[in-house]
């Protein structure tokens, strides 16, 4: 009987090809949509991580409590030895120190008097050390709009919009007015090496990036760092592993009660990111459920249409002595065969596209005028083990349910009526 059903499926395209294509496309779109959304979320996490949170971050306990205000008077002391210790203890992570600061950028005129000023948010990173991961993390090579990256002491990068507003460009002198970690006034001259695009309006309005050695000197923070960021070297952010890492680090230093003792936090623990990401995950799940629901309804209707068209055939099969249950089961078997093949093909197609988008990505940078520091210019999908089942299971289930529901008509219509419909 299975051979009989298979022959019918192969010969009647409306019975096989149309549902097959529907299931295949539905499954493929689900897999691609899932992987793409997954990739977008990972990309969002990674962008935030690279610019600000790291996958994990080490701060002093006191600093951690006020981290939003970047209180440099509570920064980590002895950052060099702490960094070396972290690199030794966690060799699978890249570690990099940073100092966040704020102040005013003052642009002098020919007489040395203030020509124009603007508030600035600053980030000091290891720019000049060849072994530093910062250039890659902040996408600096691509984000430069004018000029070049700092190569010599005393050189900085300004956000391009900010530099334009101040009326300066590469080679100009800009004076930073800020405060040391001990609260004293700082007035330090820098040379603008280049301008960059951050990709976030608030940063593009007034931000600077300086080398951490320069800023340690300027802010009187020798061998200090506001925070030390850690990044998984081999792959994107892994929530559970980061949380376990932070818990282990903090547990080992539990006995050290000092306010300046280091404390590690994972990405999720920072700036309400846990809630944001959980909310995003919920929204994402709802979208996925909606998508699957739509696909199920489409497949159900396809099954219904197919069954309605075949009521006459069912009638003649009943007249020839096939019982209702067997006919119903054969209909579901057909649906399951088509659903299985369509879902498998759709999953394979979806995975192929997703892997391509994961490896090659979609290069927004080529469409935009400039890449940016924070917002990634290459959007990528991300294939996870869930990608292998997210399209297959609903594809199969929707086909099965579609046939099961639409086939109920076999029971609800009188046998003589079904047989008669064949003649129409």
């Amino acid at each position, binding site marked *: *009987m299975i051979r*009989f059903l298979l*022959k*019918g499926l192969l*010969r*009647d395209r409306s*019975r096989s090809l149309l549902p097959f294509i529907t299931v295949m496309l539905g499954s493929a779109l689900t897999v691609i949509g899932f992987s793409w959304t997954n990739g977008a979320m990972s990309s969002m996490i990674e962008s935030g991580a690279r610019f600000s949170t790291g996958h994990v971050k080490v701060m002093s306990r006191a600093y951690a409590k006020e981290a939003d205000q970047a209180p440099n008077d509570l920064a980590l002391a002895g950052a060099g030895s702490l960094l070396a210790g972290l690199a030794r203890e966690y060799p699978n992570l890249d570690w990099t120190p940073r100092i966040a600061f704020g102040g005013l950028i003052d642009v002098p005129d020919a007489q040395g008097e203030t020509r124009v000023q603007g508030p600035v948010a600053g980030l000091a990173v290891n720019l000049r050390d060849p072994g530093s991961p910062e250039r890659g993390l902040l996408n600096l090579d691509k984000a430069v709009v004018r000029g070049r990256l700092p190569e010599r002491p005393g050189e900085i990068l300004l956000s391009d919009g900010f530099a334009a507003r101040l009326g300066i460009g590469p080679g100009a002198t800009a004076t930073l007015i800020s405060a040391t970690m001990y609260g004293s006034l700082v007035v330090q001259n820098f040379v603008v090496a280049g301008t960059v695009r951050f990709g976030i309006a608030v940063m593009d309005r007034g931000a600077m990036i300086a080398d951490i050695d320069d800023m340690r000197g300027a802010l009187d923070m020798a061998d200090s760092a506001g925070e030390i960021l850690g990044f998984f070297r081999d792959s994107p952010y892994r929530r559970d592993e980061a949380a376990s890492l932070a818990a282990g680090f903090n547990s080992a230093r539990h006995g050290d009660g000092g306010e300046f003792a280091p404390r590690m936090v994972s990405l999720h623990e920072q700036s309400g990111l846990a809630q944001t990401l959980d909310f995003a995950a919920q929204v994402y799940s709802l979208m996925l459920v909606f998508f699957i629901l739509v696909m199920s309804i489409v497949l159900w209707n396809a099954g219904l249409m197919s069954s309605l068209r075949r009521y*006459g*055939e069912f009638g*003649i*099969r*009943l*007249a*020839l*002595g*096939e*019982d*209702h*249950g*067997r006919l119903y089961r054969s209909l579901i078997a057909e649906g399951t065969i088509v659903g299985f093949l369509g879902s498998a093909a759709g999953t394979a197609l979806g995975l192929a596209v997703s892997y391509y988008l994961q490896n090659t990505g979609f290069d927004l940078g080529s469409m935009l005028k400039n890449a940016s520091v924070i917002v990634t210019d290459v959007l990528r999908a991300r294939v996870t083990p869930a990608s292998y089942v997210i399209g297959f299971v609903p594809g199969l289930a929707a086909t099965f349910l579609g046939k099961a529901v639409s086939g109920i008509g076999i029971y609800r219509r*009188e*046998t*003589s009526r079904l*047989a008669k419909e*064949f*003649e129409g």
Partner: protein
Amino acid sequence: MTETPLIVTKDLTKTYPMGLHTIAALDSVSLSFDKGEFAGLVGPSGSGKTTLLNIIGSLDTPTAGSAVVMGQRIEALTHKEAARLRNRHVGFIFQTFNLLPVYTVYENVEFALLLLGLPPAERRRKVLAALEWVHLADRAKSRPAQLSGGESQRVAIARAIVKEPDIILADEPTANLDAQNSHNILRTMARLNGELGTTFIFATHDFKVMQYLRRTVTLIDGRVDTDQQTDGRPGTSGAGEQP
């Protein structure tokens, strides 16, 4: 000793709701058919011929009265039991042939045997024998769309006889055929009836069919009007030779 009739109906009534009223398709029909009969239900459209055929074939159930076919009360059968009765004892031939279009002639005829669960070799033997009977063995691999009307109806006959049923119910089997093909089909059926002893009951208002009947039951408005024995020997007009 008298042989038990294959089919017995007693006060068989079938009504259909029609808005606020009910329409009686059959009204207290009492009939019996013996093995080997070549009988016809004749009458105008709406007289209840097809309804009676459907009930005898367990495709439908009576509203009142009883129909006993092969010793089984139709009104008491479950879906499964009715299917078993049709599968083992009843063959159908329809006005529009009702062949499954995606399957070949061979597969259409084989389908009834698949339901019986016969082994492949036996199925093959029986299908080829049935096709030989209707002179269509050479069209075994054709699809219904490639057949003429007469050939299609002969396939339907092969499908009905392949499981060697006790009863074949034919609802207007010649309605879509020209005179030549009608006579060919009817001769084939008469030959089956004569050689295999299969009981044939027709629902028809085609005079060509009536010529072949040995018993004619006339239905008017759902009631039996007349029940006559006839000679079943048609004239020669329009009749061809072998199909």
